[in-house]
Each structure stands twice: as C-alpha cells, then as structure tokens.
C-alpha cells in the first residue's frame, strides 16, 4: 500500500512538472495583464525545437536552449500582436496554438520523414535522472527511506528546477521592485505609466519570462520525460496549466499545489485504468481526465472561493494622447 502510494506520488511529481512550468509561465504573463491561452502552442514549439537540436548535437543543454528560444520567439509574436498592435490577446493565443501545431508536424515530417516525430535521441541528448546523495544507502530506512530515495531522488534536473522556480517566482513577484511593478501593470497600467515606467517594456519582459518557462516545459516533455518529439505531444497540457493557474488564483505557491493536484489526478487515472475501487466499482478513466476542467469551472463559478484575475488582464493599454 505504502509502496503504491510512493509510486503514485512519484509519477505525480513527474506529471506535474510540465504543468507547473507552464503554469508559472502563464502567471508572469497574466500578472502583467497579457492573457495567454497560447501556452499549449509554446510548449509544443519548444518541445519540437528542443528535440531537433538535442538530436543533432547530442547535447541536452543545447536542446533546452533551443526550446527556450522557440518559445521566446512565439512569445514575442504574441507580445507584438497584443502589446504593440493592441490586438485581441485571445485571438493571438489561438493563432499561436495553431501555428505551433501545424509547423511542428509539418517541419518534423519534412526534415525527418517519420510522420511528424523526431528520431530517438542519442545518449547525451537527454536529461537523465539524478540520484541524490545517499539515496541508495537510506532506501532501507522505514518510511523516510522510500520517501527520500523513491520520491525525492531520481528525477531529472528540470523537475528540481520547476519546483525551485516556485519560491523564486514568489520572491520575484512579492519581494522585488520588478515584481511590484509587474503586478501593478496587470492591475492598473495607467498608474504605472504615470510613475514614469514603460508599460510596454514591462509587459514585454513578462512575456519573455513566460517564453523561458514554456521553453523549459516543452523541453521537459521532449528531452527529459521522453526521448524525442511526438506530434501533438502536449495533448492539452497547456490548457490544464491554464486551468491550474486560475485554480491557483494567479499565486505561485497555490500554482504548485494546483499542478500537483492535477498531476495526481492524471497519475491516479493511469494507475486505475481497468481496475475497480472497492465500494465504488470501476471508475471510467474519462472521469479523471475531465476532473481538472470540471473543478476549474466550478471554481470559476465562484462555488469554491472566487478566482479574480488581474484587473487589467486582456485589455490592451492605450496611452491617451488627446
């Protein structure tokens, strides 16, 4: 029983990592007032870029850098449309999702000819599991041993990076000048402008940070969790991350718990496939698949607390001239 629990929690951590990275990415963007439903597309583009470069160079770090560059590129398109041209941010996000889905499959087929997937990565092209010190020697200690060696140890560096990004994001948002301004520009850009700070530059920086984190999320999928890019490999994770962001009410620590919850649901769904729970019977796997979305809708409806987005999110900022 305890073993099973550790196994489920272990896969929870693995499954929540891309959600968490994408969720924090969305957090920076939306806190600055730029709504981003293109998380999915950016992750997908990043996964493809990371897999291509990691395959060609056999270097996971270069793959990560490529993934981040692709995601930043897509972020800048979103920024150009929604900040500079004051276009509809949702329309722009939809466009980015389509572009990424189409381009990755198209270029993948044209370059590698394997139906949109990239070839399996060579040895150095993948982030490997890191065994934390003494993990093997303490494994036999009851309770704490399995938790340390089974749950905490044996993940790749992006997993640790994602969870470290949570306190870091909290610190940036609530303890730095940049964070204060970032939050302010998402609530009241006119006030920020009056204080002599450029709304445009602040929002562009937020969008770029969003790209970096989405890049890490995509790279995690393609060159850490699996060994190569598969067509449509994000499979809606960007939207789950968006749901988690709302569920977390746009707060970093909450975001971690929301992503862990959604990751846990996923892990349980995989575990319970075709098995029956005592007293309940067999729960269809679709229930677990739909649950994150259902929970988010219920939250949005205001039945479990209220999710209030940053006040200026989705509204392009126009400096009055007349």
């Amino acid at each position, binding site marked *: 029983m305890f073993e099973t629990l550790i196994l489920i929690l272990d896969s929870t951590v693995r499954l929540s990592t891309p959600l968490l990275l994408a969720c924090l990415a969305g957090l920076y963007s939306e806190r600055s007032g730029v709504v981003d*439903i293109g998380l999915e597309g950016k992750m997908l583009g990043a996964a493809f870029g990371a897999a291509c470069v990691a395959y060609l160079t056999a270097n996971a770090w270069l793959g990560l850098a490529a993934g981040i560059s692709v995601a930043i590129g897509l972020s800048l*398109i979103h920024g*150009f*449309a*929604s900040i500079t*041209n*004051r*276009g*509809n*941010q*949702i*329309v*722009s996000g*939809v*466009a*980015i*999702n*389509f*572009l*990424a*889905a*189409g*381009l990755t*499959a*198209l*270029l993948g*087929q*044209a370059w590698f000819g394997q139906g*949109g997937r990239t070839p399996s990565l060579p040895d150095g092209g993948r982030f490997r599991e890191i065994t934390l010190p003494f993990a093997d020697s303490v494994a036999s200690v009851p309770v704490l041993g399995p938790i340390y060696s089974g749950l905490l140890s044996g993940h790749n560096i992006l997993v640790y990076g994602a969870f470290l990004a949570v306190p870091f994001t909290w610190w940036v948002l609530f303890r730095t000048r940049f964070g204060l301004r970032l939050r302010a520009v998402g609530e009241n850009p006119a006030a920020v402008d009056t204080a002599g700070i450029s709304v445009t530059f602040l929002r562009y920086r937020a969008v770029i940070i969003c790209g970096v984190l989405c890049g890490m999320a995509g790279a995690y999928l393609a060159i850490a969790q699996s060994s190569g890019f598969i067509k449509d490999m994000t499979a*809606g994770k960007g*939207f789950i991350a*968006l*749901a988690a962001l*709302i569920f977390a009410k746009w707060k970093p620590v909450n975001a971690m718990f929301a992503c862990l919850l959604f990751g846990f649901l996923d892990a349980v769904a995989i575990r319970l496939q075709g098995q029956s729970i005592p007293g309940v019977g067999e729960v*269809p796997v*679709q*229930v677990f*698949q*739909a649950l994150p*979305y*259902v929970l*988010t*809708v219920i939250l*949005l*409806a*205001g039945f479990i607390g209220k999710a209030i*987005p940053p006040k200026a999110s989705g509204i392009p900022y*126009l400096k009055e001239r007349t």
Partner: protein
Amino acid sequence: MSAGQLPRWADLGLIPLLNLTAAFLVSGLVVLIIGENPIEVVQILLWGSLGFGEGIGFTLFYATNFIFTGLAVAVAFHAGLFNIGGEGQAYVGGLGVAAACLMLDSLVPWWVTLPFVILGSAAAGAAWAFIPAWLQAKRGSHVVITTIMFNFIAASMMVYLLVNVIGKEGSMQPETRTFEDGGRLPMLNDIFPFFDFGTAPVNLSLILALLAAFGVWLLIWRTRLGYAIRTLGANATAAVYAGISPARIIIITMMISGGLAGMMAINEIMGSQHRLLIEFVSGYGFVGIAVALMGRGHPVGIVLAAILFGMLYQGGAELAFEIPAVTRDMILVIQGLVILFAGALEYMFRPALIRIFTFARTPASAAPAAATK
C-alpha cells in the same frame, strides 16, 4: 482612436485584403523553407479543390462544416463574446443528430427525420453552450476559459458515452450502429443529377448551411434581438441604459451560437458518416474562428471564407498526395496565420495606410480648409 480617418472601402476592403495577403505570403515562405515551390503548391491546391467535380464536391462538403462553425463564432462576436467552444458544442451536437437518427431511421423517410435532427443537434449544442453562458451572465466567469474547459469535458464525455453507453455492442470501434436510409441525407448528386461530384459526400446540409447564413443575417441586422446583441457587443454600459438585460442577451446569444455549432454535426453525421463516431469534429470547430475573423462576422463573408477554407482542406489533401513533404498540417499553419493576421494583427497596416491616405489627400483638401478659415 484613429477610426474614420480611412475611406470606408479601405477599411472594409483594403485592410482585410492586405492582412490575407500577408498571411498567404508567410505561408508561401513556410513552403519555401520546406524546400518546395510555392507556385506549384498553389497550382495543386487550386486544381485539387476546383479542378474537377469530385474536388468541388469535397470543397463544398468541408465548406458546409465551416459555414456552421463560422456563423457560431460570428454570432457570439457580435455580442462581444468569444465562443471558443464550437468544437465541443459541435461534438455534443452529434448526440442530438444520432439520437434522432437512431430512433427514427428505420421507421420514416429522411425528410421526416430531418426536422428532428435539426432540433436535436441545435438543442444539444445550445445546451452545451448554456452552462458557460449562464456562468458568464450570472457569475462573471470568463466565457473564453469556460468554453475551453467545456471542449475538454465534451471530449471525455463523448468517449465515455460511445465506449460504454451508446456504442455498438461487440465492436471495438467506439461508434454507434450505422443508420438506415431514414437517417441519411440525400447527396446533392441525387437531387441535382446534372452535377457530377463523384464520391464526394456533399449533401443537403449545404442548403441548410446557406439558409442558416441567411437566418443569421436576418437575426443580426433585421430583428430587435439582433439589435440588442449588437448593442451589447458595442457598448455594454449603453446597452444597460437602453433597457437591455446583458445577462439575458448573453445567454440567448451563446445558445444560438452553440446551436449553430451543433448543427455542424448534421453534415458530418447524417450527411456523410451515417453513424456517430469519436472525434468526428476534428478541429472544424476551431476553423470557425478563422472563418468568422476572415469573413468579418458577416454571413456573406463567412460563406466566402468557408469556401476558401474548404478549398484549403480539399486541396490540402490532394497536395499531401502529390507532394508528400507538404502534409495536411500545412492547413493548420495557414489557419494560424490567417487568425494571426486577420484577427490579432488586424490593425497592423492601419497606421501606415492612414499616413499614405493623408499624404495623398493633403493637396486637395488643404485649399478648402484654408478658405473656410
């Protein structure tokens, strides 16, 4: 803002044209990057979609889907709502089609089934749009987010229903039994024998789609409700002062939108597949966004944009056959670029155009301006 500084024809004709040209030029660049010849690609696209009867048939078949989903997005747009849930609403709409067809197909001819199918699909789609609409109207939950969530919920629910509840027994495929003749719409080939559409499944739904487009025009520009919808979309505060209840209009508009999306299922399920199967919507709901943006929310524009996207889908299939490097994913790229340029970057060319027009006009208008001073 700088509205009104451009002549009407430039606003309504030139800017959309520039945006589309930009989208297609970038698509051409993508083709070049893959190492193929864009001109050859365009030739195959045109020939594949319009060059022969069967190609035209498929083009019109796809266009039928896009007219429905495009109208769905456009109706919501007029009220200032963004319905991204067309995909899910069309999927659930399939339930309404299947319910009517499975009950009636062996009892009555198709023309008796059809009204029930229309009602069923529209009601199912509208019902699926009702919850996000109600949440937006009464609880202020953003309709964009809830409709995205409802797409995923619909996908899970339909798989569950098709596998466990309404699926054909003893079949590995998650689908219902095939409908009898009473659950099949006549093909256009059979109604108009002088067209030769080959094996293309273009069917009576096309006429239905055109009627729906006319209906939407009537609704938006010729009825009291349409006026209320447009007022709400233009200025929600003014709408309240005009005695319009935003909550009521939001719910009604979203249900009309959902109903139109749901009717897309008629074409796929009753017109072509003759059984309910998983993932039959396959992105057509999302294409509606591109179609509505490109058609600028007007039914005539939407029908034209739907035909263009029908050409892309059918021509794209030919293309993948002729040039294997250019797969059908190219359509997704074009779709993304159209949404980007015609939607998000709608005003990108405006400042430059205004400068050109002002410059061109200055000598002529400077004199009278000086005279009246």
